[in-house]
């Protein structure tokens, strides 16, 4: 066991971890931040995406010890200071970009990383960027629309009638 310290959603945290403890486990089991989800064991699904020093990272693919000293942001850190939904979160609700909610934290974190590096992506760029995030519920249609809307681009209203 070694002690590891980092900043998570602006707060300093620390805990004892084994060498093999994954960042996803540290966040979920150690810090009780269960918004970060684990949907696979081969780094494919992206439900566990968090930001480490501003970069989107699959937290199941990084040891907790590797994140020592890092600034980590999880889905729990994405709301506005007053507790209201952030822009991307609100767009996901407005455009029905989630159903069961399990992939959603990773989708929101990936979307945030995309919009940080490409503030006005094309639809094709959004779809390509989400290659590492699997959703089984939505067929991606409304996720793509939500991200386009969150970027400030025109998106048709949800539902035909």
């Amino acid at each position: 066991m070694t002690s590891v310290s980092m900043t998570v959603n602006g707060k300093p945290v620390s805990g004892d971890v084994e060498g093999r403890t994954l960042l996803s486990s540290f966040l979920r089991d150690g810090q009780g931040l269960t918004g970060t989800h684990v949907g696979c064991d081969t780094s494919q699904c992206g439900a566990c995406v968090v930001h480490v020093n501003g970069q989107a990272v699959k937290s199941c693919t990084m040891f907790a010890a590797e994140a020592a000293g890092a600034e980590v942001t999880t889905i729990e850190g994405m709301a506005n200071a007053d507790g209201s939904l952030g822009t991307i979160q609100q767009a996901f609700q407005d455009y029905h970009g989630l159903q069961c909610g399990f992939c959603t934290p990773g989708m929101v974190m990936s979307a945030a990383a995309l919009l940080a590096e490409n503030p006005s992506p094309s639809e094709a760029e959004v779809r390509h960027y989400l290659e590492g995030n699997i959703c089984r519920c939505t067929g991606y249609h409304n996720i793509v629309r939500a991200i386009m809307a969150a970027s400030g681009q025109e998106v048709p209203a949800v539902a035909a009638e």
Partner: protein
Amino acid sequence: MPKDSGIGASSKRREDIRFLTGTGNYTDDINLNGQAYVAFLRSDVAHGTLNGVDSSAAAGMPGVVRIFTGADFEGVGGLPCGWQVTDRHGQPMQEPAHPVLAQGKVRHVGDPIAAVVAETAAQARDAADAINADITELPAVVDMSAALAEGSPKVHDDLTSNLCYDWGFVEENKDAVAAAIDGAHHVTTLELVNNRLVANPMEPRVAVGDYAAHNGESTLYTTSQNPHVIRLLMGAFVLGIPEHKLRVVAPDVGGGFGSKIFHYAEEAFCTFAAKAIKRPVKWTSTRSEAFITDAHGRDHVTKIELALDAEGKFLALRTDTLANMGAYLSTFSTSVPTWLHGTLMAGNYTTPLIYVNVKAVFTNTVPVDAYRGAGRPEATFQLERVIDKAAREMGIDPVELRRRNFIQPDQFPYATPVAVEYDTGNYDATMDKALALADWDGFEARAAESAANGKWRGRGVNSYIEACGIAPSALVGQLGARAGLYESATVRVNATGGLVVMTGSHSHGQGHETAFPQVIAEMIGIDESMVEIVHGDTANTPMGMGTYGSRSIAVGGSAMVRAAEKIINKAKKIAAHLMEASDADVELANGEFTVAGTDKSVAWGDVCLAAYVPHNYPLEDIEPGLEETAFYDPANFTYPAGAYICEVEVDPGTGQVSIERFTAADDFGNVINPMIVEGQVHGGLGQGIGQALLENCVYDENGQLVSGSFMDYAMPRADDLPNFTVDHSCQTPCTHNPLGVKGCGEAGAIGSPPAVVNAVVDALQRGGKDVTHIDMPLSPSRVWSAMNS
């Protein structure tokens, strides 16, 4: 003008707030005081004799609390099958035992052999890996035809063969169908595979067992679509726990698609072990484990023959199907290739004579059960593929051939020759809508453009029907179901006017917490925010059968309406008393009770308060309080239907298929929340297109799962799918439920695969290739091989 509240409004989902802020409560988020963790040792061979389990080394490893093997479960029941199919000779199906942990034999890769309970998940895994299972490997039975061949090794030694049942439907029609086919002007024959799939909800399964010594109550937290069903099956058939001593909780569940209907060994294990060690026991599946333990879907091999007259009228239809059951009978496995498949073979058409034969086969593979659509995608795929082939053979436009055979609007209710009676429908209307939205007439211009870019463009159409809202209990009882299939709701009105609806339906993505209140709000004329939905806990909801088969709003919603009607009737009596009027004259609208022809009124909230503070109250006639329960057992299935059109481009150099347009025009009857309905269709389309182009569950000849991870099993990604054009404006409301709803959860997965394959075949034909069928998934290599063979 769209509504902003009530039935028909696209109300935003209230459950989204917790899912978007990371505050959902999924089963893996539940951690109980003193909890231990379980890891399973699973068979790494498909078939073998289990000679013994040596756990002596593992027992001494750090953190190990206890190790369980099959011997610990000798006095415990096996996992039950919920549907007994009777074969064409009147005999019951062969039904093997399904132990919680393997006893004597292992029958598929992933079959659980032993379980380690330890202080941490990692310690449990480490110790499980140190257990030595002595297995003598046996030849694996993988291919269904080989499994039925004389002399094949048997998956279950105590059964007569690997044949679970040989089902004929309708058996009495067999000879007439044969005669009609023999004498027909034209017969189109097609042999096809409905590829094996893995449901893969993004949340892997989890089970947490708990036992309270002070009152002897067991609690299971589990990723289930139907907690009451799990309580009944596990309590009554496996562990022998009376239902009043067993609570099953399915909190937020991260998708199901059928795979979380069934009662699994891990649920029984955690409940059993928690009582044995007097500590909570938690199991969290890895994705790798999910691939070898979650029930798989589809896996049919079919020959279909369609007989037509010279004008293209369908005269008779005959199908022969081998359906894979896997190594054991999962909960509803036996019903899928039979009653959920054979009964849909009429499709949208007037085919007078139909005979369906299904042989269900045991193999050394993971059990196969319902996956989104369950039987209906298999029926629709073969029917809509053979119709397309017939159209090509006879030189009739595929849309026209379908139209010539559509059941007409004035023919409803329409009794098909395969036991079901469609209540309503208008198949030309959805076809017209789909053709218009897809710009069918503009296709040639787009095809020319594709050709200019070196691509072959093709289009495929299909028309589907499904049976949802399962089901009339009396009917399914006759057909072999070992359960009733009603749904329940308790509506509790609080003294201050708010309502809580406790439903047996379960939401795992469908948005019940938003859509169900829309119905209540509409009925009473109050704000949706005054209604709360409680589901997923047997301790505080009435006995219900859960959510699958697109049944929630049709059956669960109807139960809620019936309970709400009782509430309103009672509230009117209270209001009549308060207004000194006759209750027959009392009307309720916009949250206010009025007396016709007078200016008297009393608010909803005042009546609710009176019910709980009955100072001025008709106590002689009615009890205080305002809480009612209803159980709703439907009179019939519902029959959503629609027309789907897919337009593809095929790259002749590589065989790569890209979907350029996809249009879905569905008739779901009345719609409660259009936004949610469209989302359900999008998701179904994603899974159906995934089946058609990408997904394939593959075993090698030794029974090893080759596609056992997301690196090997091609889940659709965002850039594999197009934007969808969906429409639900063609509405022929269901005539036998109070909401006139039909269900929308599976349509996309049912209607899309044949549209995709029809489109690809069309593209290849337009490219000059005489290809009449390619088995799914239409990967570049399969398409390229087909066009170059």
